């Protein structure tokens, strides 16, 4: 336990240092954050255009899809903030600098996660929050303690699921640095997939990207519960409460994959 609190204290110190550094350049920071906010709206604009043409998409109304969009967007924004810089780590493998992480007295993943922290990525969360406000204002939700608890729980459990997917898929760089873009199909791809009701996807795509890669547990199942909506695919109701368990399982898978990757790491020759 002492070890964990030591790690957390170190995490706080390192991240605080990154924060101070970024706030030195206020104009840059403001511009970048606004840019991120705008990027998060591109996909929502697409959703608005879709609903300008049809009243329902696969049995879902605009505010309902907005809820899916907001949960996925918020979750993805926080994941991106905490670990998005992991996308830069293949570069360390390419130049052999991953060696440096291996000789330091902390976990490799921990060191990578504290190596950067781009606060501007919060801009994406602001966009998602605005859409969430829109969705909640336009939905008639029967709020009870269970639904409020669900709304509070889905973001942290979704962040853990997304982060696990990110860690597990970027590990491909341990085998081939060039193939790292494959992980985008699951991270950014997962964000795209989660914005829409999964019942509109083809069966095989759904099995693979929604259940094996557990994107459906980020927004879709929890949203069915909050909306008290029957599942168009007719899957069992308990799945609506399974997200935290899925998050725990995903963490185990991701850390196992990371350990296998590190063991496989071959330094750049020289």
């Amino acid at each position, binding site marked *: 336990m002492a070890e964990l609190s030591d790690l957390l204290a170190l995490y706080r110190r390192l991240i605080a240092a990154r924060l101070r550094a970024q706030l030195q350049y206020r104009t840059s920071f403001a511009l970048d954050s606004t*840019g991120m906010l705008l990027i998060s709206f591109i996909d929502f604009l697409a959703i608005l*255009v879709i609903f300008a043409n049809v009243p329902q998409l696969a049995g879902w109304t605009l505010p309902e899809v907005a809820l899916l969009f907001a949960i996925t967007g918020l979750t993805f924004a926080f994941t991106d903030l905490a670990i998005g810089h992991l996308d830069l780590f293949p570069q360390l493998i390419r130049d052999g600098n991953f060696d440096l992480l291996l000789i330091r007295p902390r976990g490799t993943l921990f060191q990578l996660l504290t190596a950067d922290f781009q606060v501007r990525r919060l801009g994406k969360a602001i966009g998602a929050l605005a859409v969430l406000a829109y969705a909640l204002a336009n939905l008639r939700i029967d709020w009870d303690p269970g639904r409020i608890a669900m709304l509070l729980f889905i973001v942290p459990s979704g962040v853990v699921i997304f982060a696990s997917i990110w860690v597990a898929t970027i590990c491909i760089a341990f085998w081939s640095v*060039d193939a790292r873009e494959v992980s985008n199909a699951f991270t950014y791809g997962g964000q795209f997939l989660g914005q829409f009701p999964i019942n509109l996807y083809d069966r095989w795509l759904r099995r693979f990207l929604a259940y094996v890669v557990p994107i459906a547990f980020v927004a879709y199942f929890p949203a069915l519960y909050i909306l008290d909506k029957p599942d168009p695919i007719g899957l069992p109701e308990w799945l609506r409460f399974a997200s935290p368990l899925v998050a725990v399982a995903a963490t185990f898978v991701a850390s196992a994959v990371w350990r296998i990757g590190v063991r496989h790491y071959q330094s750049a020759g020289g």
Partner: protein
Amino acid sequence: MLPLSLRTDLEIARRGYQRYAAYPLATAAGAFTNIIFGLMRGSVLLALFADRQRIGAYDAAATITYVWLTQGLLNIVAIWGWQELALRVRTGDIATDLIRPIHPIRALLAAEYGRATYQLVFRGIPPVAVGVVAFHAALPSDALVWLAFFASLVLAVAVSFAFRMLYNLAAFWTTDTRGTMILALVVMTVFSGFTIPIQFFPPWLAAIAYATPFPAMVQTPVDIFVGATAGPPVLVALAGQLAWALAMLAASYGLFALGTRRLVVQGG
């Protein structure tokens, strides 16, 4: 025998091609990601046609073709942007380019066509092939349509290139190029018709889009390919692309000349 300057262009284009050809695995990984996104975008846009026959000139079949074709085009026209020139201005490396006997924009344009050729073959064909084989995306049957499409694609690359030049050249005036680039990327993805066909836009938004050069980068070639633009209007569309390409290339040459006049390269 070609004149020397054209041979130089071709040689630079060949290098532009080889630069990307050096990483076949990266190409495969990128194509894989394009295909996964194609599967998802296809499902979403097809769901629009559950209760509707057509939206604008697009029916379900044309929309499927649109999805797979745009997945193939996105790398050719560099949807995600490009900031090499901006970085060269910032680091001062641009000084080296100024010594060379060929104008930097011309050299970059030549390299751009080499890059685009590589992307056409290795990033463009795979998603379209998946679309045709697995999802009945339709290829044009008329050779003239193919000809018009490729002409339109060549022009689309020029328009997209010129636009990227313009926001890269902003680096001569501001060191903060990332903000400019993100803004450019947002506007380009939405108004080029890449995320969703412009025909699906409400009329007022479509009018805004068509007043910009962005549809010339994606929507114009795609409309020709799926037959949404056919007959004499194809010539009008191509002329529009050509006009945007020439105007924006001229603007980037002008901006470059202005920029180099105030360029300060530090140190020595």
